């Protein structure tokens, strides 16, 4: 199963920036575009169900169904210093919203390393991979519910 095309494009764009500092700058700019989940989707307290397991930045993932049955993904990041989580949220929200559910369900969690490189702490890796895993799991759950 192919990775959603837009995610492939995003990863290839990032990998075209081999200089670590330039890539970090790109990711910081992405984090600056982070928009929290709108109140029509979710309000605080968010509860435990949408909480990303193992994410120390206290990230939450929410979905909104599109008319075509695909999902928009929305995020909240409670840690004001969770800048990597915000960058990851922007990447996942941009690249996976509206993508075929079966493809989103297959996105491997190690895309985190293609985005951030290998120089991540175990805790940070776990949290970011948890975000990817949660998005995939939500897509899988919805796809199975629809018999996709």
């Amino acid at each position: 199963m192919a990775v959603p095309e837009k995610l492939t494009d995003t990863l290839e764009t990032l990998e075209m920036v081999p200089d670590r500092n330039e890539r970090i700058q790109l990711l910081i700019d992405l984090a600056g575009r982070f928009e929290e989940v709108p109140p029509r989707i979710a309000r605080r307290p968010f509860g435990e169900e949408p909480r990303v397991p193992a994410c120390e930045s206290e990230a939450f993932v929410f979905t909104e169904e599109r008319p075509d049955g695909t999902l928009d993904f929305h995020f909240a990041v409670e840690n004001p210093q969770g800048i990597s989580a915000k960058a990851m949220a922007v990447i996942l929200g941009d690249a996976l919203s509206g993508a075929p559910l079966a493809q989103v369900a297959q996105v491997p969690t190690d895309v985190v390393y293609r985005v951030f490189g290998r120089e991540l702490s175990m805790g940070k890796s776990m949290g970011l991979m948890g975000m990817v895993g949660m998005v995939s799991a939500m897509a899988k759950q919805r796809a199975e519910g629809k018999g996709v």
Partner: protein
Amino acid sequence: MSNIESRGYARPEVLVSTDWVASHLQDPSIRIIESNEDPLLYPSGHIPGAVEVDWTRDLNDPLRRDYLGREGFEALMRRIGVTKDTTVVFYGDRNNWWATYAYWVFQLFGHDKAKVMDGGRIKWEKEGRPLTRDVPSYPASEYRASERDDTKIRAFRDQVLEHLKSRKPLVDVRSPDEYTGKKLHMPEYPNEGALRGGHIPGAASVPWAKAINPDDGTFKTGDELRSLYENDAKIKPGDDVIVYCRIGERSSHTWFVLTNLLGFDKVRNYDGSWTEWGNLVGVPIER
């Protein structure tokens, strides 16, 4: 939070306030160092004049699981323009977790002109103090380091086994779920890097962040810390104590608290921690 001097610490001079840092930004005898878990934070803005010391690129051996050696440390100090006379002041994200890790590694090389900014990055930010994206450049320094001394504040697995046999105190600073081993059994969690869950038998559980005031990231008072470690965990300043976590970073924070704030004489950080112990064949584990 009260003044650092009034909090009843054994060595209050190892902590400085955000006010103190703000008034020493131009002091050439001071080098402010940011150490974070999140690699995007320093480049997104830092205290003016602060340099970054990154735990993976700067403090670890690139090949073996070990810290940098003497030559690597000298090169690092030259790069950030630090001499033997420079006082380094660490701060960072996550309640200074990584800042105290860097502080601990610096102590392996005996650079004892070192302090930590109480409250870390979050306090500086909350107070609306200036941040800049300008990365400073300092003239390369001359720095002759001692060989790394792993005997006083670092523990290895065989020493932990001996410690265990002698029934000396251990402190596990991980979360309660890691301590009980529950976390490894939660299938939605990514691989923790250890094959077995639980803790080293006899270790007291004191999660590292209990030493921190959650509102502003500052350290708790001496009395509060003594209650936590001496009353609850039953360890005393004269004890021979080993602390551990998953890879030795969170436990360096507890090492800092016990050594500097409570004045414990002999605290060693077992940096192999659970990623080593939880993978060792035949060592005792408790749940």
